[in-house]
């Protein structure tokens, strides 16, 4: 039991001492997650809205595909990205393996279906009613899209926050494609996994605490926007 108390003490000391390595890892983690969530939102929100509105032959099959993609195993995504970007892979010439860019690509593949799936579901339910109101009041395509985003803003916010949560807490894919290189691709989750395996519980607990605090802040923002709904 003593090592747990010691771990917490060490964690607090680390955080209070503003250790450069710790804060670099935190910055990279948050930066990568924000970037991948932003890219996924750019892809997932318009596509989710469009596909929710559109009637097409394979819509049921597509729905199943999107829902399956929402729970893609990160390690499998990491493996696929690694195969594509490894030196002998089809995209090996780009030299992206073990770089933050490869980590963002892996996270985008994981997060986009989550955002798209949630937005798609909302668009399927009430998108047609919003579209019809916009169209019958004289809105053009862009104005209708803006109206739909405004009307579904709470759902979209939930989708984006859920996506961010997935990105920042993900370890399998970023470990494979990033390689946990100190000062370059080391993020909070890979740092926790590494320190845990080395028995450095203080370091692991410190980073775990930071992850929990970030999760709390993100959920508080979400609650603030949805509470009045």
């Amino acid at each position, binding site marked *: 039991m003593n090592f747990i108390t010691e771990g917490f003490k060490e964690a607090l000391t680390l955080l209070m001492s503003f250790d450069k390595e710790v804060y670099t890892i935190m910055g990279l983690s948050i930066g990568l997650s924000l970037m991948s969530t932003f890219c996924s939102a750019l892809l997932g929100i318009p596509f989710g809205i469009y596909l929710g509105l559109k009637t097409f032959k394979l819509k049921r099959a597509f729905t199943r595909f999107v829902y399956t993609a929402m729970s893609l195993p990160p390690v499998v995504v990491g493996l696929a990205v690694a195969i594509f970007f490894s030196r002998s892979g089809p995209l090996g010439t780009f030299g992206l393996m073990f770089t933050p860019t490869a980590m963002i690509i892996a996270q985008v593949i994981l997060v986009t279906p989550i955002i798209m799936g949630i937005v798609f579901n909302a668009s399927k339910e009430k998108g047609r009613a*919003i579209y*019809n*109101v916009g169209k*019958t*009041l*004289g809105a053009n395509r862009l*104005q209708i899209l803006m109206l739909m985003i405004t009307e579904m803003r709470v759902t979209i916010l939930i989708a984006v926050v859920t996506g961010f949560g997935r990105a920042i807490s993900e370890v399998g894919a970023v470990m494979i494609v990033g390689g946990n290189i100190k000062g370059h691709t080391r993020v909070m989750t890979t740092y926790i996994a590494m320190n845990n395996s080395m028995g450095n519980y203080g370091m692991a607990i410190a980073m775990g605490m930071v992850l929990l605090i970030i999760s709390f802040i993100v959920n508080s923002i979400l609650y603030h926007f949805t509470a009045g709904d």
Partner: protein
Amino acid sequence: MDIELTHVLKKYQNKVVVDIEKATFKSGKVYGVIGENGAGKTTLLKMIAGLEPYERGSIYYNGKCLEQTDLRRVTYLSQTPYMMQMSVYNNIAYPLKIRGFTDAQINSSVNAILDELQMDALANQMATQLSGGESQKVALARALVFNPEVLLLDEPTASIDQNTIKVIESTIAKRNREMHMTVITISHDRDQINRMCEEIVTMERGKSNVYSRHNHGE
């Protein structure tokens, strides 16, 4: 605006829902569409509003086909209108905002229609929290505020109290009289059709038949 349908065919999963050889809706007149449930009334209005595609035929607006027509002058009011998650004032202001009106113009037009429909007290309320009758009035105000040439109404007064029905009917009649607006309304209430409409369109299994009411105004 005159509207003319020729050889229009609409199917849902191979079932014919609208099959109209020829029907004409003359500018400035008020038409009442009657028929049993599933006769194709709502689909007819949605096709005119450009909300429903159709398999065959053409709809002409002042002699021009859909592709050449600015449907911003045609509006459709559903039986259960969608209220945007904003205040009543902003719901009604929306069509003017997207048309680039100035704040002063918007303020004046919205206040005028709020007054006309006796809704001044509701201006700052959230539109999503209104009763059925209030929502219907807000939706009508939102549809009329930009002075459309064609107003398509899908049972605008179903399950609404008599006072609200009176206000809605008189507002539509006034706009029709003053702005020469074409009105096509669906209703199951024959008395209302007699009160409001000059022409009656009967729909039966997708087919339409238009005839005049000679006793209009009696």
